[in-house]
């Protein structure tokens, strides 16, 4: 930590100036951060929450700055994880010193609400500098500001800036240096509470010695903040404050509201004195665009087109890049096979580690395409409109409108879908969306559906002479998983993830042109975090799976294979026939090895549990193998049935494997349907589990998803197979 090395011998280490950037969402705070720190920024996480932490360096006058980009928030009373993080960062802790200066980024076209946060930050005793951002938009709209008057009222420097162009940023930096040198210049507007609040503050002081020493501003914050956060800041204090306010909850609520009204009363007076609104405050350009975008008919049409494009991009346009990644990883694996001496070391590297690395990188195109789409929608202001339009429909499933994009993306793949839940503000909404995202019918299920339908439904006459039964069954699977998702969402809302959903409270930002630099930063951060952090889990799980499919290696099997090879080499003349025979022998040996491996034994052990679903031990092994990714069922089944296997699962290969299974009796129409139902619902994807773990920061929720989804899948398949059998189908 560069912070802890702060106090060294003179000249050895200069303690960097700690500058915190805070502000409401949509104020251009991130643009300012990017302008100041350029490429010298890192993204991390705050401990315990899923809020990202952005820090960067900047060379100041004499000493470097360490710039902290705090999450965007409207207040510091901690109704959300973002606010908690912002508050704790501003107050500082044992490991993190409080910032020397807080730059509060204000949207100059919407000063009153933005100033509310500035007042709160100043109340905490942090020296502040006001950055009046979007000054160009404000001037174009006709706002006039008396900057000197505002500065006097706010008790801190107020610098007009245009973060997009960099205009005014030098003056802002100079103001920060000035306040760092003389904190009194950024002392803020102070407090001026109404009589009721003053009485409440006095009463609180008499209750507790810690409260007695707190400043008016900090005390006001304690009265308004959620007790758990107060406790995290000062252990035990939150409970005491809560106990005090519990004596008269009505009065406590009154004081909380009073604090807010008192702040706004002063803010309104400042704005009235120093800000002149446009002469004619008519409808803005954004209002006129919204006439179309939020129109019941045209708005819905625009929404459908936008979402279709986004889905197409993730589902289809990312595929060539993913194929490229696969080809590249295949080439690397071949090189390793050719150049390393055979043995376990090579196998674990190629089939475990490299498979995991490839399994991580293959998601990257989808993730980057999806996040590019989301960043465009979010930065332009359209995402808030989309959420507004679908909020009612999504609300019926207990989900907020913003859950639409993550769930839609999950139809391509749950991994980027789960990452996309970051756009949801409320942690419980986010958790609920993460838990049902794996039910959206992802593209990895399609090869399995193809395998089954090609084998058992292909020769069935078309329904009504037009519709292929296979296609109908696949469509039914999409419908089934969607209905199950709605039902699960409703149940979880009433049980594990309670609450009627967060209130909507959605700010509709003005439409703005997305900034390329911000987009690049978002993609870089998302991609890096996924590859580094989620990738590590995926590689580890991939190695475990490889071990399951490989060990134990029996000497007898190896000797038998060696004997077969020797026999072939003696009896078959060198040439095509011998190569053919050797390949056959290798396939047979792979079949035996898999059967004897832990996964093979697991498959046999699973048979009693899955026999009521119509599955034999072979499918049991397939279920274990498909933990790597659902489509891996196809090559694993090929290996079990002694067919040439291929990691490249195309339709013909899938159909061929399915037909082999059908000939062996493993797959009948009823068993096939049962298998499809199982795959429609079950949680079989280690990559999704790894992503869930990274995004929820614990193994608890991925393991819960693994349990409940597989139990549901079992029940669904059981119902299908047993009812079907009872009705005489097979």
């Amino acid at each position, binding site marked *: 930590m560069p912070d802890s090395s702060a106090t060294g011998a003179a000249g050895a280490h200069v303690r960097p100036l700690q500058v915190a950037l805070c502000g409401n969402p949509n104020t251009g705070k991130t643009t300012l951060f990017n302008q100041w720190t350029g490429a010298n920024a890192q993204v991390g996480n705050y401990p315990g929450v899923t809020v990202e932490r952005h820090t960067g360096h900047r060379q100041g006058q004499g000493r470097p700055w360490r710039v902290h980009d705090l999450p965007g928030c409207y207040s510091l009373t901690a109704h959300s994880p973002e606010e908690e993080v912002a508050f704790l960062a501003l107050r500082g802790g044992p490991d993190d010193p409080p910032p020397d200066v807080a730059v509060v980024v204000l949207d100059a076209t919407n000063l009153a*609400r933005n100033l509310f946060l500035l007042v709160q930050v100043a109340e905490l005793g942090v020296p502040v500098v006001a950055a009046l951002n979007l000054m160009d938009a404000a001037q174009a709209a006709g706002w006039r500001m008396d900057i000197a008057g505002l500065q006097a009222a706010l008790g801190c420097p107020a610098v007009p800036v245009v973060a997009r162009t960099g205009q005014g940023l030098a003056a802002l930096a100079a103001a920060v240096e000035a306040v760092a040198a003389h904190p009194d210049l950024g002392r803020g507007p102070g407090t001026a509470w109404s009589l009721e609040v003053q009485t409440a503050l006095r009463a609180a002081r008499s209750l507790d010695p810690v409260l007695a020493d707190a400043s008016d501003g900090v005390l006001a914050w304690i009265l308004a903040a959620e007790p758990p956060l107060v406790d995290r800041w000062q252990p035990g204090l939150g409970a005491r404050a809560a106990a005090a306010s519990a004596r008269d909850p009505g009065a406590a609520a009154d004081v909380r509201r009073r604090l807010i009204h008192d702040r706004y009363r002063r803010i309104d007076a400042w704005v009235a004195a120093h800000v002149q609104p446009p002469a004619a405050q008519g409808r803005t350009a954004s209002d006129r665009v919204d006439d179309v975008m939020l129109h019941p008919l045209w708005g819905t049409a625009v929404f459908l087109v936008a979402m279709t494009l986004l889905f197409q991009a993730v589902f289809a346009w990312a595929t060539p890049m993913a194929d490229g990644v696969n080809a590249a990883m295949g080439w690397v694996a071949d090189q390793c096979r050719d150049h390393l001496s055979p043995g376990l070391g090579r196998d674990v590297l190629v089939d475990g580690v490299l498979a995991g690395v490839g399994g991580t990188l293959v998601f990257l195109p989808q993730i980057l395409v999806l996040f590019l789409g989301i960043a465009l929608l979010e930065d332009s202001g359209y995402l808030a409109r989309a959420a507004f339009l679908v909020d009612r429909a999504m*609300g019926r499933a207990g989900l907020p409108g913003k859950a639409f994009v993550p769930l839609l993306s999950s139809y391509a793949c749950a991994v980027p879908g789960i990452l996309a839940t970051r756009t949801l503000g409320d942690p419980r909404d986010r958790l609920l969306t993460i838990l049902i995202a794996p039910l959206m019918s992802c593209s990895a299920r399609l090869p399995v559906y193809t395998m089954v339908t090609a084998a058992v439904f292909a020769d069935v006459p078309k329904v009504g002479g037009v519709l292929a039964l296979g296609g109908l069954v696949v469509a039914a699977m999409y419908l089934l998983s969607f209905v199950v998702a709605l039902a699960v969402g409703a149940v979880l809302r009433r049980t594990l993830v309670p609450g009627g959903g967060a209130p909507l409270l959605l700010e509709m930002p003005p439409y703005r042109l997305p900034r390329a630099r911000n987009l690049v930063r978002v993609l870089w951060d998302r991609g890096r975090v996924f590859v580094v952090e989620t990738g590590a889990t995926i590689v580890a799980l991939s190695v475990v799976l490889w071990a399951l499919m490989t060990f134990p290696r029996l000497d007898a099997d190896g000797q038998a294979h060696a004997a077969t090879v020797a026999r072939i080499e003696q009896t078959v003349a060198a040439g095509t026939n011998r190569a053919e025979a050797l390949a056959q022998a290798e396939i047979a040996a792979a079949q035996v090895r898999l059967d004897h491996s832990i996964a093979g034994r697991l498959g046999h052990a699973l048979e009693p549990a899955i026999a009521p679903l119509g599955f034999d031990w072979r499918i049991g092994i397939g279920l274990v193998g498909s933990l790597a990714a659902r489509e891996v069922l196809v090559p694993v089944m090929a290996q079990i049935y002694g067919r040439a296997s291929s990691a490249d699962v195309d339709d013909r290969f899938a159909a061929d494997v399915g037909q082999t299974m059908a000939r062996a009796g493993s797959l009948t129409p009823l068993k096939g349907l049962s298998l499809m139902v199982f795959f429609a619902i079950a949680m079989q994807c280690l990559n999704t589990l790894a992503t869930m773990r990274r995004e929820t920061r614990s193994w608890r929720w991925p393991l819960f998803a693994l349990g409940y989804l597989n139990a549901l899948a079992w029940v669904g398949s059981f119902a299908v197979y047993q009812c079907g059998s009872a009705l005489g189908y097979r």
Partner: protein
Amino acid sequence: MADGTRSAATSLQGHASPMGEAGAVPLDHWLPGQHGSVVRVDRADAFGDRLAELGLTPGAPVTVLRKAPFCGPMLLRVRQFALSLRLGEAAAVRVAAAG
């Protein structure tokens, strides 16, 4: 939508607007184009505080910009920004028409 539950939920009449109770209607009753100012927020919980923090304080100007179809959320202009609220949530905001 019983009015009784709404008034029972509040303990905040203490500092209602100087306009008093006369003419205060739930915001969700308003139609697009109607404007006026906030009288009070009838919820003593964190959500009510959040509405106040966003600027829905007594006397603050409010305009209804539009309402989503099928009883979807409504879009407001509060002070200088656009905010959307579900109808059930907007019902807690009591407003008085301008003029």
